[in-house]
Structures are given as structure tokens and as C-alpha cells.
């Protein structure tokens, strides 16, 4: 009986969402207070019923109700509790319910934290979100109901895919979905602005904090997914350019462009139509990602089981949502007019260039991801592009972007004299260049690696990072030099300034990580007998054999590898080869000793047949690899700092915002 309650809740939520969408948008168009007044209660109601449905599914998983088909397919009575909960989003239907839940959470948050916004704006934003929610609920009810019964009930479940039985995977999808779905808020604000015909700086100010929150979640979500791939797949890679990874990376790139573009629209009134287009684009790519993952048009390790009906539905939904938005854009945007003027060299022009580069990067990921689809449709056969394509397009785009990223915060709004800017940065750039060129000569020695050749790509990567750091120091120096108390000046800088610089520093840290791993990693795939040792990167690895260990729902061959450096014991690593009881699927668990400057990474390959306990063992030394994720974390924290800025405090009066916000913003741009 309880699962049917969940099903019923979804139907009620669909009814509420549709009503929300129709009534509040209609109310805003007709300026009817009564109709607009229903927006908030309906948004809360929608949230309550979707949450109820989610609770029911959670109950079915935790109580091992194998009469529910979805539970029987994705859980098992042996599955540990936390994974039984995470199994809710372990398959297509449940992850869709998570999507719908998070969307209703965002809608309810907008309803709560929008007291100071004009009534018709709130009504339109919630209405647009209601329509999107209605689309997803309809999709679920028509093609992917998580509450479908299995009669007679299964004795036990088929178990959750062992790859997903991992703490990283418990939080990765909710984080990522918070980001995907969060872009719907920026999208809803943009559509409301288009509908209302008021494309001024105000909509940008309102949607800025929401967009940044979504971006923060997405950054963390992508970083978690990449970290998971690193330690769970056993190959030591951290990004594979897999279609599903790309599906999250494209909206992230466009979302990054969007948060910068929103800043310009808010502060300078420029890029108005461009910002609207980015807001539509970021959410459209989130929807496209959903389509790619669930329709089976591309092969990926992550794909959900595909069903042609689902593909048709999402594609139809995508065409309606994105097509209607772009139509609205084509109709309304020409009337917007141009914003504030700016010179060829100014903070605006630098931000615009980076916006374009990020969008082009996003488009090239899209082309690479869909390439097999295009070629097949045009009859050129089944071809696909891999990591080499993405690296070949990505690096050339990112180099000028990083260069301008350093200049941007130093340049003035509106107009900046080139000689002036050049004289500000010349020593910083020269310093970064010299260090980047010289450091690779000695790096091999510092890290005691076998390979220590000088290479162009390593020097380039280091130059990019050091340049960001140098420009950051220059910017801080500008703001803090001169008369007055140093500490007080340090305090006077806004959190959003620190947030931006922290996020940019995160990019520098990330680039160092990527450069060092690519340039200096040591990878050894060797056959090791019990007692064999291998010397690599100044360490000595000794293989002590593999013993049987029993886990809660698997049996594992657990290896023991002791690592010595200069005769001292560094660590003992325990890579595993697990076989899960129910599915019988084998899984590799790498064992890693992380470090600030290098990870020691050991994973088990296959046992060598007809030997005395010998195994194929993969031994990797990954210098600076953790900097990749540290960089992502810093970007996310930068976003959090930016949101904490007083100008975005929700309890602040709308009047104060409209007045002071712009002035403070302008003043901040004109330092020096």
C-alpha cells in the first residue's frame, strides 16, 4: 500500500506543478494579484508531495520491499544500510525522482528567499520552474515510474551495481544534480525577464547568488565524480572525456561564463542579451545531458538502461523547453538594446573574450561528444573521437583564457590604457615566465624521478599557474598599498573580491596538478611474485602476496604492498580485488597513500595463472595529483565566499540593493 502512496503523491505533485506553471505565468501577464498569490503556496505544495514520494521510495529501499520492481533491481538484503539509501539514485527511475525532488527544493527556496522581489517576477520564476517540474514528473509517470510493482515479489534483490557501492557515489549524484537543477533558477529568471520585457541590471542581480550556488554544487559534484574514477576504476586516470562526464562539463563551462557575464550585466548593464542567452544555454545543456545519459544515443560506462520511448519523450521535452526559450529570445532580445559602452581594452572586453572562449570550449566538447552521432547520421560510419581530440582543442582555448583571466581583475571597467596595464603586470609576468622556464630543469631532481626532461607543455602549464598567482599578488598589492592601516584595508575588501581571487587561485592549483601529473607521473604494470620488489621514483615497493578477506557483501583478495624509502617504511598499501556475492561482479579497489606532493597508487590486475601467488600489479606514482581536486575545492569555496557577500544578504531591503549595490559595484571596479 505504501508504494502506491508514493505513486499517488507524484500524481498530485504533477497536478500542482502544472497549476503553478499555468496560473502564475498567466497571473503575471494579466497582472492579477490573486493569481500571482498562488505561486508560493503551490511551490511549497509541489515540494511536499515530491518529498513524500521520495520518502516512500526511501522507505521501500530501507525496508527491503522487493515487491517494488525498482528496489528489486537495485538493492539486496545484504547491501549495507548507507548504500541501500544511496541505491535510491542508483538507477534511472530513482535518479529522476532525485532530479524532481531537487528541482522542487530549489523552487521552494526561491519562494522563501524572494520576499523582496516584485510579485510578478516571483510568479514568473516559480511558474517556469513549475512547468519544468511538470515535464519531469510527467516523464516519470509515463515512462519511468519508480513505484511499479513486481508481483509476485522477488525473494531478494539483484543488488546495486558494485561500482556504485562507494562513499563517493553516495554524495556525487545529489551534488551534481543540485548543480544541474540549480541552473534552472538562472534560466527561470532569464525567461521571466524576457516575458516581462524588462532586461535591465536587476534580473541579473537577483539571479547572481542562485547561479553561484548552483555552480558551487556542480563544481563539487564534478570533482567528486572525477575523484571516484581515480580511485575506483583502478587505472589512475581522473578524467576520461566520457560522454556522461562531458554532459556535466558542458553546463559547467557555460555556467562559469554565466557567472562572469552576470557580474558585468549587473555592474555595467552590458552584455544583456548575451547573458540571457548564456542562462538559457547553461540549463539547456543540463537538459541535453539528461537526454544523452538516458536515451542510449551514446555508449558510455555510465549510461542508464535505455528505452526508445524515454529518448523520444526527453527529446520532445528538450525541443519544447529549449526551442520555446530560444524563440522567446529571438522575439524579445532585439528590443533590449546595447548596454554600457566599453573600449577595446577594458575589463568588459577581457570578460567578454573569456566568455566567448568558455562558450567555444563548451561547444567543442559538445561537438566531440556528439561526433559519433553526426557521422552516423550523415552516413560516414561509426566513428568516435577520444581524449586526443579534446586535449587538442582544449589546451589552445585555455591558454589565452588563463592569460586574460589574470589581466581581468587588474583592468578598469570601460577603458584601460594598454601601456598602463602592461606596466602593472610586466614584472609579474616576467617573473612567472622565468620560473616556469627554469623549474622543469630541476623538477625531476626535486621529485627524484627517472624522467626529468624539459618539455614545452610542462613549462606552459607552470607559466599559466604562476601567471595567475602573480596577477593575484599584483591585485592585492594595488588594493593594500598606500596610506592607512594594513589590517583594516585587508578587512575592507569585500568577500566577493576574496571569493573571486580564491576561485582563480583554485584554477592555478588545478593547472599545477594537471601539469605535474601529466609531465612526471610514473606508471609501472608489472608481474610480481610474492616477495618481489620494484624500485620506482625513489621508492621501493615490495609485494607480500594476496590473502582472502570477507566483507559485508563481498569476498576480496586483499594484497599487501609495503613501500620503503631510503630503507625506512613509508606505508603499507592494501589494494583489493573484490567479487560481490550477489552479482558476482569483480571490482578493483586501488589503494592510495595520498600526499601533498605525490600519491602512491597501487592496484591489483589479474592473478598470474600457474604461478605461486604471483599477480599483475599496477604501481603508479602521481605527483601533485591531489592538487587537481584541491583546486576544484578552492573554486567552490571561492563561490561560497562570493555568495556570503553582504550585498546578497537575503534580508536586506530591496531598496537598499537597487540603490547601493550598483554604486558599490562600480566603485570596486575602479580601484588604483
Amino acid at each position: 500500500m505504501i508504494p502506491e502512496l508514493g505513486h499517488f503523491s507524484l500524481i498530485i505533485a504533477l497536478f500542482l506543478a502544472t497549476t503553478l506553471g499555468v496560473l502564475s505565468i498567466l497571473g503575471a501577464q494579466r497582472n492579477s494579484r490573486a493569481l500571482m498569490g498562488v505561486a508560493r503556496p503551490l511551490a511549497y505544495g509541489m515540494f511536499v508531495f515530491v518529498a513524500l514520494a521520495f520518502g516512500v521510495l526511501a522507505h521501500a529501499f530501507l525496508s527491503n520491499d522487493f515487491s517494488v520492481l525498482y528496489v528489486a533491481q537495485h538493492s539486496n538484503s545484504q547491501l549495507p544500510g548507507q548504500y541501500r539509501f544511496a541505491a535510491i539514485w542508483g538507477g534511472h527511475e530513482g535518479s529522476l525522482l532525485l532530479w524532481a525532488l531537487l528541482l522542487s527544493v530549489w523552487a521552494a527556496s526561491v519562494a522563501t528567499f524572494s520576499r523582496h522581489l516584485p510579485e510578478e517576477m516571483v510568479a514568473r520564476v516559480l511558474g517556469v520552474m513549475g512547468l519544468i517540474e511538470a515535464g519531469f514528473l510527467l516523464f516519470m509517470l509515463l515512462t519511468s515510474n519508480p513505484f511499479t510493482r513486481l508481483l509476485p515479489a522477488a525473494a531478494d534483490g539483484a543488488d546495486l551495481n558494485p561500482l556504485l557501492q562507494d562513499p563517493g557515489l553516495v554524495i556525487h549524484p545529489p551534488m551534481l544534480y543540485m548543480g544541474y537543477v540549480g541552473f534552472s533558477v538562472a534560466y527561470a529568471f532569464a525567461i521571466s525577464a524576457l516575458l516581462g520585457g524588462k532586461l535591465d541590471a536587476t534580473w541579473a542581480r537577483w539571479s547572481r547568488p542562485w547561479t553561484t550556488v548552483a555552480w558551487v554544487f556542480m563544481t563539487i559534484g564534478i570533482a567528486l565524480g572525477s575523484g571516484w574514477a581515480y580511485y575506483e576504476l583502478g587505472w589512475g586516470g581522473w578524467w576520461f572525456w566520457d560522454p556522461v562526464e562531458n554532459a556535466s562539463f558542458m553546463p559547467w563551462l557555460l555556467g562559469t561564463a554565466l557567472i562572469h557575464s552576470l557580474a558585468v550585466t549587473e555592474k555595467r548593464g552590458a552584455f544583456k542579451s548575451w547573458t540571457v542567452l548564456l542562462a538559457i544555454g547553461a540549463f539547456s545543456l543540463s537538459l541535453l545531458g539528461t537526454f544523452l545519459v538516458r536515451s542510449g544515443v551514446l555508449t558510455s560506462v555510465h549510461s542508464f538502461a535505455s528505452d526508445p520511448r524515454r529518448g523520444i519523450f526527453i527529446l520532445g521535452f528538450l525541443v519544447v523547453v529549449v526551442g520555446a526559450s530560444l524563440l522567446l529570445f529571438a522575439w524579445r532580445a532585439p528590443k533590449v538594446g546595447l548596454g554600457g559602452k566599453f573600449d577595446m581594452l577594458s575589463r568588459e572586453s577581457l570578460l567578454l573574450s573569456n566568455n566567448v572562449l568558455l562558450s567555444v570550449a563548451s561547444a567543442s566538447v559538445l561537438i566531440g561528444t556528439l561526433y559519433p552521432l553526426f557521422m552516423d547520421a550523415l552516413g560516414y560510419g561509426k566513428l568516435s573521437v577520444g581524449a586526443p581530440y579534446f586535449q587538442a582543442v582544449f589546451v589552445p582555448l585555455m591558454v589565452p583564457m588563463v592569460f586574460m583571466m589574470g589581466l581581468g581583475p587588474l583592468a578598469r571597467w570601460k577603458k584601460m590604457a594598454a601601456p598602463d596595464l602592461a606596466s602593472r603586470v610586466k614584472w609579474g609576468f616576467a617573473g612567472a615566465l622565468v620560473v616556469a622556464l627554469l623549474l622543469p630543469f630541476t623538477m625531476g631532481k626535486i621529485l627524484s624521478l627517472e624522467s626529468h626532461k624539459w618539455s614545452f607543455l610542462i613549462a606552459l602549464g607552470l607559466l599559466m599557474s604562476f601567471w595567475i598567482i602573480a596577477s593575484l599578488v599584483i591585485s592585492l598589492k594595488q588594493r593594500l598599498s598606500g596610506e592607512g592601516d594594513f589590517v583594516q584595508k585587508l578587512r575592507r575588501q569585500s568577500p566577493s573580491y576574496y571569493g573571486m581571487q580564491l576561485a582563480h587561485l583554485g584554477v592555478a592549483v588545478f593547472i599545477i596538478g594537471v601539469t605535474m601529473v601529466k609531465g612526471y607521473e610514473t606508471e609501472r604494470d608489472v608481474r610480481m611474485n610474492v616477495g618481489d620488489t620494484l624500485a620506482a621514483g625513489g621508492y621501493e615497493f615490495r609485494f607480500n602476496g594476496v590473502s582472502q578477506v570477507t566483507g559485508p557483501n563481498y569476498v576480496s583478495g586483499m594484497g599487501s604492498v609495503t613501500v620503503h624509502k631510503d630503507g625506512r617504511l613509508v606505508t603499507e598499501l592494501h589494494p583489493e580485488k573484490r567479487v560481490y556475492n550477489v552479482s558476482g561482479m569483480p571490482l578493483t579497489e586501488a589503494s592510495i597513500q595520498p600526499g601533498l606532493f605525490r600519491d602512491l597508487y597501487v592496484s591489483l590486475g589479474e592473478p598470474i595463472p600457474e604461478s605461486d601467488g604471483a599477480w599483475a600489479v599496477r604501481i603508479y606514482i602521481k605527483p601533485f595529483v591531489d592538487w587537481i581536486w584541491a583546486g576544484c575545492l578552492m573554486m567552490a569555496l571561492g563561490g561560497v565566499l562570493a555568495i556570503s557577500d553582504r550585498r546578497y544578504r537575503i534580508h536586506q531591503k530591496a531598496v537598499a540593493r537597487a540603490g547601493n549595490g550598483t554604486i558599490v559595484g562600480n566603485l570596486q571596479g575602479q580601484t588604483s
Partner: protein
Amino acid sequence: MMRFILPLVLFLILSVFLYKGLGRDTREVPSPLIGKAAPEFQLPTLQDPAKQFSPKEMLGKVWLLNVWASWCEACKDEHPVLMEFSMQKMLPIIGVDYKDKRDQGMDTLKNAGNPYDQVISDADGKVGFDYGVYGVPETYVIDKTGIIRFKQIGPITPENLRDKLMPLIAELQAK
């Protein structure tokens, strides 16, 4: 005006491709092994470890190499299709029990039926490695001269058996 319509136009073109992509069979990925000789191996059969099998024995016949495992969920969908196909006795079907425990593999065949003329036990995944297996089940069509002609990734369905595999097999057998 035109530049504001451009995003819509681009999106509509993209949608057409996405629509065309919906019916696409992504499982049919070209393998570098197609058109090349099937890699040689020598492995014991599942039922009798003393008996060895090698692809050389199959020269002169068109045959199917099907990689499966007892732990593989998708193989359970494929199994009935193979059972029915084996009744037609169109060609020899050789199974490779991939990275599996011998007794579990035998149990599966005992319970669900055995569509194979011979089953090879590849407990260490050696054949899988040589043949570039990256997902179980996978199926190879190998011709009379020992050349791999087709590779199917993922389960064989009644449709692609009828539309792809059987015409190809008939054509190869006629040669």
C-alpha cells in the same frame, strides 16, 4: 535580427541529429580486429579441464564465439535468444566463460540450458584480453579462414540476430 534567431536555428539542426540518433545501435562499434585473423589460444573446456580447445579446430567452418559469464546480468537476457538460435543448428556456437568460477559457470548452464557446442573456461580473462573484450556479453562471427567478420557488443537480440547476424552468416557460409 538574424543573429538573435541563429541560436534557435542551430538548436533545431542539433535536434534533428539527436532524433536520428535515437534509433541508432550504439552497440555496434567497429573493432580493430574485424578483417583480421582471430587471435590464437589454447584453453581447457569448461566441463573437462583435460580437454583443450583452439580456434584452429574450427578452420573450414563459419562459427560464433560468444563471451559470457555467470555474473553477467545482460547475458541472462541473451541466453534464451542463443538457446533458440542453437536449435536451428545453423553453425557451431563456441562459448567463452569469461573470468568466472568453473562451478558457477557449469551451474548456470545446467539451470538455464546449454546453447553451446563447446564451452571454454577462460578464468583469467586471457582470451578476453586478446579479443579486446570490454563488456560481457560480446559475440564474434568468424569465417571459414579464421578471419573475424563481425563483433557484437552487448546481448544479441532476436531483431539483430534476424537482421544482421543470420544474413551475414548465410553469406559467409555460401562463400
